[in-house]
C-alpha cells in the first residue's frame, strides 16, 4: 500500500516548511483546505508530484507564496477563498493555467472575467473545463467569454447570481462545449429558443439547471442543444412545462424533473423522447396518469413517480413502457394494486415500490395482484396510510418466485396466516417491523419456506416468545433484529437452531434478569459466532441499574433441588407410612405372610397329596370360655363313644415352643376339617378369627371345604355384623346349631347334632360336595321350628 491521498484540512498549518523531508512519491492528492497558511515556504520540488492540490479557505495565503514552487504536474489547483489574485498567480507560478479552478476567486464583474480570459488566452488556446462557480456573477454579457480560450468540455457557472442564461448566447465561439451547468443560480424561466440568430450547440450532451427558481419552461427551450442526453431540471419550481418544451430531444436518456410543481403530464410531453431511459418525476403534484402519457417511452427502464398524488392510472396510462425495470410509485394515493395496469412490463419489472400509499385490504378473497410479476425482486409495501394494509389476503404473494426483498413494515396487519410467505422461496430480505397490531401471534411455520432468507427484521412486532417452531427453519439467516418485542425470555435452543446467524439485535426487549434467562445470559456472553448489539447496555427490567450481562445467576440451580425434593419427599412419605401401616396392619400382614408361605412351600404340596392320611380329622377352634363344652361334649362324642375321630385341640396338640401362628397354620392344614365352635366369646377373639380366616382361606381359595361351623348360642345376625370377618364366612357357609335348652327334645336333638357332625367329618373335603344336607330340623317332632335350630344361610 502506498499513500495516494492525504487530507490535512481543518488544521492550523501556517506554512509547509519541511527541512529535508519530502512527500512520498506515491502521493498525488493533497488537501490543505481550511488551514491558516500564510505562505508555502517549501522547497522547489516539494509539491512536484502532486496532481490535485487543494489550498482553499486559507484566507491569508498570498499569491506570492507560489513563487519558487514547482506545480507543473498539478492538474487541479483549488484556491477558493484565498488571498490569491489570478493575474499575479499566473505570472509567478508555473502551474498550467487551464488546470486552475477559478471558483470563488472574486471574479465578479464582466471586466474581471474579460481580464481573466485575456490572461488565459495568452497562455492557452484550448481549455478543457472552465470553472467559474461562486464568483457572484450577476449577468454575463454575450461577449464576456468570447476572448477566452475555447472550452472543449464544460463550463460551470454554479452558485452565481445569474437571473437568466439567455439561450447560452454568451457561449458564442465555444461550439465544442459538451456540458453546461448553472446550478444554484437565480434563473426564473427557460425561454423559448427558437429563431434565426440562435446559436446551436450540437455537442452539448448534458445540461444542468438544478437548484434554480425556474417556474416555467417554454416550448422548444432546448432547441439550441438538440443532442442533449442528460437534462437536469430538478429542484426548481416548474409549474408550467410547455407541451412542446422537450420537443425534439430524441437523444435524451435521463430526464430529471423531480421536485417541481408539475400537476399534469400531457400525452405529447414526452412524445419525442424515444431514447429516454430514466424519467424522474418524483415529488410533483401529478394526480392522474392519463392514457398514452408514456406511449413512446419504449426504452424507459426507470420511472419514478414517487411523492405525487396519483390516485389512479387511466386504463392505458402505463402503456408503452415495454422495457420498464424499476417503477417507483411510493408516496401516492393509490388505494389498490391493479395488476391489469402492469401487464405491459410484467416480464421485465424488477423493482416495484408501493410504499406509503393507501392500500388496504379488508377481505381475504382476492387473487394475488402480483401473479405475473415473476421477475420482480424487490417489493415495498410498507407504511400504507393511514390504517396500514390491515390484512394480507390469502396467497397474496403468489407468483413472486424471484422476489428477494420484501418490505411490509408499519402495516398493522391483524393476522399473519401461517402460509402467508409460502410462495416466496427465493426471499433474502424481509422486514416486518411494526407490522402487527398489539401482540403478534406468529404462527408456527410462518417462515417455513424462507430457507434462503438472510435478513429478517421483526422489530416491534409484539412477539411474546421466540420459539423454534416459528424461527427454526431459517437456516440461512444471518441478521436478525428482534428489538422492541415483548418476550421476557428467549429460548437458547431456538437461537442455536439458526446456524448462520451473525448479528442479533435484542435491544428494548424486556428480558428479565431471572433464572429463566440464565442460559441466555451465558450464551450471549460465550458464543463466538453471533454479534449482539449493545449487549453490555441491555438493562434488567426490575432495576435499570443492573445489566443483563452480569445479573447474578448463582442462585439458579433448580434441577438438583427438584431431584432432591422428589427423592426426599418420597423417602419421607414411605418412612412415615410404612411404620404406620406396619403397626396398624401387622396382623393382617402376618396372616397374609403365612398364607403366602404355605401356598408356596413344599409342605403344602405334600399336605395336599397326603390329604387322606392327615394327622388329624379335625382341628377344633374354640374360645377358652367354651372349653367345658368342648371337653365335656365334643371330645367324648367324637373321640370316644364309638367314633374314632382324631381331633386336634390347641392346648393338647400344639407343638411346644413353636410360634402360635405357625402352630395354627399347621393345625389347620394338618387336619381334614376345621370345626369352629362359634360363641360370642369366640367371635371376639383375635386368635379364633385367625383360625377361621385360615380355614375359610382353604375354603375359598383352594376349593377345599374344611370349615365346619358349630354355633353354641343363638347369635342374631345383627350382632354378627359387627364381626365382619365372621360374617363374610357365614354368608357363604351352612352351619350347625347346638340345640340349646329351648328345644323340645334336647337329647334327641343332640343325637342328631352329633350324627350330622360325624357325617360331615367323614366326608372328603372336596368343595363340590353338596352342602345342603344340613338343612334338617333338629327338632324332629316340631318341624315348624326348624329354622330355630338348623338353617341354611344363603
Amino acid at each position, binding site marked *: 500500500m502506498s499513500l495516494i491521498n492525504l487530507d490535512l484540512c481543518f488544521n492550523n498549518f501556517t506554512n509547509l516548511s519541511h527541512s529535508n523531508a519530502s512527500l512520498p512519491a506515491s502521493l498525488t492528492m493533497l488537501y490543505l483546505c481550511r488551514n491558516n497558511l500564510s505562505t508555502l515556504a517549501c522547497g522547489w520540488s516539494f509539491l512536484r508530484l502532486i496532481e490535485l492540490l487543494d489550498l482553499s479557505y486559507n484566507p491569508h495565503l498570498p499569491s506570492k507564496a507560489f513563487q519558487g514552487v514547482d506545480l507543473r504536474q498539478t492538474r487541479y489547483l483549488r484556491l477558493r477563498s484565498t488571498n490569491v489574485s489570478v493575474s499575479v498567480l499566473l505570472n509567478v507560478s508555473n502551474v498550467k493555467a487551464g488546470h486552475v479552478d477559478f471558483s470563488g476567486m472574486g471574479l465578479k464583474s464582466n471586466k474581471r472575467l474579460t481580464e481573466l480570459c485575456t490572461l488565459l488566452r495568452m497562455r492557452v488556446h484550448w481549455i478543457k473545463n472552465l470553472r467559474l462557480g461562486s464568483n457572484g456573477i450577476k449577468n454575463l454579457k454575450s461577449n464576456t467569454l468570447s476572448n477566452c480560450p475555447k472550452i472543449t468540455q464544460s463550463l460551470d457557472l454554479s452558485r452565481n447570481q445569474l437571473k437568466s442564461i439567455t439561450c447560452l448566447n454568451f457561449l458564442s465561439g465555444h461550439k465544442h462545449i459538451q456540458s453546461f451547468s448553472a446550478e444554484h443560480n437565480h434563473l426564473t424561466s427557460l425561454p423559448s429558443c427558437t429563431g434565426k440568430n440562435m446559436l446551436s450547440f450540437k455537442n452539448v450532451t448534458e445540461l444542468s439547471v438544478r437548484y434554480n427558481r425556474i417556474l416555467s419552461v417554454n416550448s422548444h427551450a432546448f432547441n439550441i442543444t438538440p443532442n442533449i442526453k442528460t437534462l437536469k431540471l430538478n429542484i426548481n419550481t416548474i409549474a408550467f412545462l410547455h407541451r412542446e418544451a422537450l420537443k425534439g430531444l430524441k437523444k435524451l436518456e435521463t430526464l430529471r424533473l423531480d421536485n417541481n410543481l408539475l400537476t399534469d403530464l400531457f400525452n405529447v410531453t414526452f412524445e419525442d423522447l424515444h431514447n429516454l431511459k430514466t424519467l424522474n418525476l418524483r415529488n410533483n403534484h401529478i394526480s392522474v396518469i392519463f392514457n398514452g402519457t408514456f406511449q413512446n417511452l419504449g426504452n424507459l427502464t426507470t420511472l419514478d413517480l414517487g411523492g405525487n398524488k396519483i390516485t389512479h392510472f387511466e386504463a392505458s396510462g402505463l402503456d408503452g413502457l415495454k422495457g420498464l425495470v424499476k417503477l417507483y410509485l411510493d408516496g401516492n394515493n393509490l388505494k389498490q394494486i391493479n395488476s391489469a395496469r402492469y401487464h405491459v412490463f410484467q416480464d421485465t419489472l424488477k423493482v416495484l415500490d408501493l410504499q406509503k400509499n393507501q392500500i388496504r385490504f379488508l377481505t381475504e378473497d382476492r387473487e394475488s395482484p402480483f401473479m405475473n410479476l415473476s421477475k420482480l425482486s424487490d417489493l415495498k409495501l410498507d407504511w400504507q396510510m393511514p390504517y396500514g394494509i390491515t390484512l394480507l389476503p390469502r396467497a397474496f404473494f403468489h407468483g413472486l418466485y424471484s422476489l428477494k426483498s420484501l418490505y411490509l413494515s408499519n402495516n398493522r396487519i391483524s393476522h399473519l396466516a401461517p402460509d402467508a410467505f409460502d410462495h416466496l422461496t427465493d426471499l433474502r430480505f424481509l422486514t416486518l417491523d411494526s407490522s402487527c397490531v398489539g401482540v403478534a401471534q406468529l404462527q408456527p411455520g410462518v417462515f417455513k419456506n424462507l430457507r434462503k432468507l438472510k435478513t429478517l427484521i421483526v422489530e416491534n412486532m409484539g412477539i411474546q416468545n421466540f420459539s423454534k417452531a416459528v424461527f427454526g427453519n431459517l437456516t440461512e439467516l444471518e441478521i436478525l433484529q428482534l428489538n422492541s418485542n415483548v418476550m421476557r425470555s428467549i429460548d437458547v435452543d431456538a437461537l442455536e437452531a439458526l446456524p448462520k446467524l451473525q448479528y442479533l439485535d435484542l435491544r428494548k426487549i424486556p428480558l428479565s*434478569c431471572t433464572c429463566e434467562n440464565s442460559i441466555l445470559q451465558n450464551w450471549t456472553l460465550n458464543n463466538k459466532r453471533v454479534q449482539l448489539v449493545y449487549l453490555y447496555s441491555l438493562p434488567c427490567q*426490575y432495576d435499570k441499574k443492573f445489566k443483563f450481562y452480569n445479573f447474578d445467576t448463582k442462585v439458579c440451580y433448580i434441577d438438583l433441588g427438584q431431584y432432591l425434593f422428589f427423592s426426599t419427599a418420597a423417602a419421607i412419605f414411605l418412612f*412415615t407410612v410404612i411404620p404406620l401401616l406396619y403397626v396398624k396392619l401387622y396382623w393382617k400382614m402376618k396372616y397374609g405372610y403365612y398364607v403366602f408361605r404355605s401356598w408356596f412351600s413344599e409342605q403344602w404340596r405334600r399336605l395336599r397329596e397326603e390329604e387322606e392320611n392327615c394327622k388329624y380329622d379335625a382341628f377344633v377352634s374354640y374360645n377358652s370360655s367354651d372349653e367345658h363344652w368342648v*371337653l365335656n361334649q365334643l371330645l367324648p362324642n367324637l373321640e370316644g363313644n364309638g367314633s374314632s375321630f382324631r381331633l386336634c385341640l390347641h392346648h393338647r396338640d400344639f407343638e411346644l415352643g413353636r410360634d402360635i401362628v405357625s402352630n395354627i397354620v399347621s393345625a389347620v392344614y394338618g387336619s381334614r376339617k376345621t370345626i369352629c365352635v362359634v360363641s360370642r366369646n369366640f367371635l371376639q377373639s383375635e*386368635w379364633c378369627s385367625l383360625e377361621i380366616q385360615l380355614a375359610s382361606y382353604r375354603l375359598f381359595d383352594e376349593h377345599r371345604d374344611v370349615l365346619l361351623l358349630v354355633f353354641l348360642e343363638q347369635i342374631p345376625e345383627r350382632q354378627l355384623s359387627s364381626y365382619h370377618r365372621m360374617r363374610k364366612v357365614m354368608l357363604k357357609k351352612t352351619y350347625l346349631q347346638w340345640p340349646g335348652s329351648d328345644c323340645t327334645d334336647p337329647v334327641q336333638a343332640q343325637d342328631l347334632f352329633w350324627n350330622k357332625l360325624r357325617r360331615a367329618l367323614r366326608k372328603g373335603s372336596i368343595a363340590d360336595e353338596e352342602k345342603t344336607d344340613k338343612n334338617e330340623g333338629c327338632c324332629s317332632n316340631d318341624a315348624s321350628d326348624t329354622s330355630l335350630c338348623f338353617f341354611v344361610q344363603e
Partner: protein
Amino acid sequence: MEPEQPAAPPSGSTNNLMNVGHEGNIQGQMEEFLGPQAEYDEEEEERKYYRRKRLGVIKNVIAASVGGMIVYSVYMGLLQMQLILHYDVTYREVKYSNLGLEDIDEKMLMGINVTPIIGLLYTPVLIRFLGTKWMMFLASGIYALFVSTNYWERYYTLVPSAVAIGVAIVPLWASLGNYITRMAQQYYEYANYKEEHVQEQKKLPKGACHSYIIVFQSVFYIIFHLSFVFAEFPMRLFLHSYLHDYNHTLSRVSLCGAGIRGLIPGFNTTVLTKLPQSMLLIQVESVLMSFAFLAMIIFLVLCGAAYRPTEEIDLRSIGWGNIFQLPFKHLRDYRLRLLCPFFIYSGFEVLFAISGLSLSYGVCVLGLKQLWLLVLAYGLSCSLFSSLSLSLLRLPRWVSLLGGAAVHFVLLVVLLAWSPLPRNPNLLAPLLVLSVLWGLGTALNKTGLSTLLGMLYEDKERLDFVYTIYHWWQAIAIFIVYLWSKLPMRAKLSILLATLLLACYCYWVMERRLARKVPPRVPRIPRPRHKVTRHTERLKYNVYSPEGRCPGGSQWVTCSTNTTKVRSSVSSGASHDTNAG
C-alpha cells in the same frame, strides 16, 4: 407396650376351675422348671424390672422432648430463613420472576395459620386412631415433608405442605402434652408398683403423680425451648454474611416500637448484599432435612407407646362418634372454660415474642443482622427459666402461671410506653433484657399451663381431649395474631394486656371455685363398647401366648391375675417389652 401386666402374687386358691386335666400338668411342669433356681430373688428381680421400666419412661420423655425440639428447630429455622430470603426483592425477581413468591409465602403462612382452626374436629379421632406415639411420628413426618418441599419451592409443593403442617400442629402438640403427662403417670405406676391401686389398674389417688407431672413437663420445656436457639443456626451460620447492615435495611424507617403500625414500616425491600449460591442453599436445606429425619427416627425408635395395647383398644372402643364429641363436651367443664383466656394468651405471647417484640422492637432498632441474637436470648431464657416451674414441687401451683403473667404485665406496660428510634445499636442491651424477661414469662406460662392441665385431669382417658382443647385455643390465638399483623402496635399490645388480665382473673376464679370444691361438669366417658364378660378360665392361652386371648383390654387384669406364675409373666413381659415398642 408389653401386654404382660405385672400380676399379684398368685392367689391360686380362688380359681381352681382350670386345674382340671392337663392344665394342672403344665403348672406342675412350670414349677418343676423353675424349681431348681433356688437363689432366685423374686423381690430383687421385680425391683430391677421396674427400675428398667422407669428408666424407659425417662428415656421416652427425653426422646419426645428432643424429637419435638429438633422438629421445631428445623421448622422455625427454615421458615425464618426462607421468609427473609423471599422478602428480598432481588432474590425473588432473579430466582422466581413471575412466580410471585411473596404471594406463595402469604398463602403458605395462611395454610399454616388458618388450617388449625378445624383442628378440634379431627385431633382426638386422629390421636386415638393412631395412638399418641404414632401421632407424634406422623406429625414429625409432615414437618419433614415441609422441609423437603423447600428444595423446590412451587405453588403446588409449598402450599399443600404448609396446609399439611397446619393440619398436624394441633395433633402434634396435643399428643406431646398428652404423652408427657401420661409418662408421668406411668412413672408413678412403675415407682409404686406395689400399691394395690396400681396392680388393680384402678384410678390413681388424687394428686399422686403431680410431682412427676411437674418434673416431666419442665424437662420437656427446658429441652423444647432450645429449639429457638437451634432455629437461629441457619440464620447465624449461613444467612448472616449475606445480610445488609442496619444503615441499609433501616434507611427509611422512622420509628419503632409502640408508635408504629404493621411490623416494620419502611423496611428496605432489599436485605441481601448478594444472592446466596443455590448450591449453598441446597446444602443448608440438606442439613435441615437430615435433622428432620433424625427427629423422625427418634420418635420412631426411642419413644415408647404411651398406652398399653389393651388400653389403646379401650380408648378406641368407646366409639368414634363419642371420641368426636368429647372435646366439645369437655368445654362444659368450668375449669377448661375459665382457662380458655389463658390458652389464648399463651398463643398470643409466643407469637408476639417472635414477631412483635423481635421484629417491631428488635430488628427495627438494631437491623436484621441482630435478629438471631434476640431470638437466641429469648430461647435460652425460655429454656433456662422453664426449670423455675420445678418450684411448684414446693410452692402452690398458681405461682408459676401468675408469676409469668406478672412479668409479662410489667413488660407489656413498658412496651406500650416505649417507641425507640431506629438505627440505634446502643439499645442492644435493653432489648436483650426485654427478650430474656419475656422468655421468663413464656417459660412460666407454658410449663404452668401444661402442668396445670396434667394436675387437673389425672384421668388417662381424657388427657388427649384436654390437651387438644388447650392447643386448639392456642392455634386460634396464633391465627388471630396472623390476622392482626397490620394493626398498630399499641392496639396489639392492648389486646395482649386485656387478654392477660382476663386470663388471670378467670384463672383466679377457677382456683377459688376449686377451693370451694364446686364439682365440675365432667362428661362421662362411655364404657368400651365391646361386650366383656368375666371369664376366669382363659389361663391356658396365657401359657402359650403372651398376647393372650383376653377380649377387651380392661378385662386383662382379671384374666392375668389368675396366672399361676408371676415370674413367668414378668419375664415374658420384660422380654416382650423390647419387641413391642
